[in-house]
């Protein structure tokens, strides 16, 4: 067992930090305030390889690891959870299923543009009546000759207005339940595809979260991802890996808030003392640091499990996501309290961090779903 980062990862961590500080942080508050997708950041992320970190070079990836990817999401999310979400949804939810389930032809067609960041990806599983109970898919796809005709809608889709390629689940055989769901690679210019209502959210307000609408949407037969009926498996396996990304995002939010509170309490004076000199501040910060470090170890273990093709990936990523997201909510709430009135204003970033943290307990499997996964894996039923 080795808890030390390799030289490569240390080097990357330093770069991620300086990139996040110089290129992402300066616009984070504005992106949140204006609910604006940070378009200008995408080419910069692309240039340095952020959009294809854990994929091989032969498909245009960076030849990196899941751990290097998780660390990138962590560092970006320290300063801007919106940007963390954009990269994570693209990498984990769109690129990953194509890489894991795609035919050689599909990989060659889609991955180079996605992994280089020339195109952005998204993922459509959730429907108005199929949230945590993802098996209740109502979107259908019917094979007609050389193409499928898709009808239905998806909701809460990250990157919806900006993505060029989506992985979409639809029912191809309703009589088979879960086993009647299939996965498709859908391009935004396919006839019958459109983007619907833009959600107004509590946090990660710069990420474009919208409905996807399919009205007799024509999808070439060769865009079926995996085999017919494998869609639910594609989705669940994708989410197993994707949770590492959300866990890393939650970890970053917590660490970012901790950085802010250490700085603030070191300067702010009350009762003739710096806040940092009060034992309450010291104990709270020590507790938060311990939680953040525990979350970090869980996230890194899950990422390493992905790199090692460890069969425990799903178990580890559920534990990491559950713990890191609840840490993010707890830490940001306590940090706002330590900031006092200023923490409640938009003059400081901590109220934004508190709003951003909440979603990590909800998307890509709520904390309750994670508890179900963990308990089931332990044989507690």
């Amino acid at each position, binding site marked *: 067992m080795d808890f030390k980062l390799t030289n490569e990862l240390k*080097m990357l961590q330093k770069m991620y930090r300086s990139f996040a500080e110089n290129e992402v942080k300066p616009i984070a508050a504005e992106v949140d305030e204006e609910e604006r997708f940070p378009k200008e950041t995408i080419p910069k992320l692309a240039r*340095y390889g952020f959009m294809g970190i854990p994929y091989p070079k032969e498909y245009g990836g960076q030849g990196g690891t899941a751990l290097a990817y998780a660390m*990138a999401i962590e560092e970006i999310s320290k300063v801007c959870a919106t940007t963390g979400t954009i990269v994570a949804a693209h990498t984990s939810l769109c690129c990953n299923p194509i890489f894991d389930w795609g035919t050689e032809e599909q990989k060659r067609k889609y991955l180079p543009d996605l992994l280089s960041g020339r195109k952005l990806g998204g993922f459509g599983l959730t429907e108005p009546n199929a949230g945590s109970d993802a098996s209740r898919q109502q979107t259908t796809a019917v094979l007609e000759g050389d193409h499928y005709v898709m009808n239905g809608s998806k909701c809460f889709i990250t990157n919806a207005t900006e993505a060029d390629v989506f992985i979409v689940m639809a029912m191809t055989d309703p009589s088979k339940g879960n086993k009647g769901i299939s996965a498709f690679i859908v391009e935004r210019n396919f006839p019958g595809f459109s983007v619907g209502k833009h959600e107004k959210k509590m946090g990660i307000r710069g990420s474009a979260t919208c409905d996807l609408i399919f009205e007799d949407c024509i999808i070439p037969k060769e865009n079926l991802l995996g085999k017919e009926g494998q869609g639910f498996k594609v989705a669940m396996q994708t989410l197993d890996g994707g949770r590492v990304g959300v866990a890393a995002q939650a970890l970053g939010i917590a660490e970012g808030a901790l950085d802010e509170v250490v700085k603030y309490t070191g300067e702010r004076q009350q009762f003739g003392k710096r806040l940092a000199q009060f034992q309450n501040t010291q104990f709270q910060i020590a507790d938060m640091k311990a939680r953040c470090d525990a979350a970090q170890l869980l996230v890194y273990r899950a990422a390493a499990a992905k790199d090692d093709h460890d069969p425990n990936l799903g178990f580890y990523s559920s534990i990491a996501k559950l713990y890191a997201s609840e840490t993010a909510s707890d830490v940001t709430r306590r940090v706002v309290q330590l900031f006092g009135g200023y923490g409640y204003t938009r003059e400081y970033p901590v109220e934004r961090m508190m709003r951003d943290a909440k979603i990590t307990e909800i998307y890509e499997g709520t904390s309750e779903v994670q508890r179900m996964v963990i308990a089931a894996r332990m044989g507690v039923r």
Partner: protein
Amino acid sequence: MKIIVTVKQVPDTSGKVAVNPDGTLNRASMETIINPDDLNATEAALKLKDEYGCKVIAFTMGPPPAEGMLRELMAMGVDEGVLITAREFGGSDTYATSQIIAAAIDTYGVDEDDIVICGRQAIDGDTAQVGPQIAEKLHLPQVSYAGEMKKEGNTLTIKRMLEDGYMTIKVNTPCLITCIKELNEPRYISVSGAFEAYSKPLVIMDYAALKDHPLIDETTIGLKGSPTNIFKSFTPPQKGVGMMLEGAGKETTDKLADILSAKHII
């Protein structure tokens, strides 16, 4: 064509600055960074690489941990690193350092179409002497303080930034350029670069590798061969606070003129 960049690992002065009782910098207890001007030199070299596909080699003199810095430069896109390291080289001032680096560059070889690029100066010594001295010792034409640089064939057109203006100079390769931070914005390392950095070639040039070079002589290297002696280091007293005049009206300009006139500046 190849580009050689010279780089130095320096103490990170943005963190805690540690000073020894004698007033010198306590380097051992400080974090290190790549000297900022040297990052501009590296970026200039990598831009030429992007355009011409030439090889870029980074040279540094320092203790073995300086390898970490060379690997970071490789992650930016540098193809090869040369680490000049030996106990005999320790304690060198700018004269001895440039002697050793010149010997190392000469040993590696400088061809007709090569360019050596150095940062203007290091933030620890602030002398701006090493680059020009390397050029002298290698008998290369040099242009210092490059703020803009264009290459056509084997000719470089350089805008040399001076305190009171600029000069535009044309120079043929092989040559040595020292650059200022306005020359460019250094790139970050890339993710793939980081994963490739540790498999790129690193050449170690120790005393044995350089001792037979004509520039290397026991009396001109290391502490013994350094003509500079530090007698005392001290913190200079702070200058007085400047005066700000507000407003752009006649009243303010008259006031400014009065002050300048009283000081016999105008």
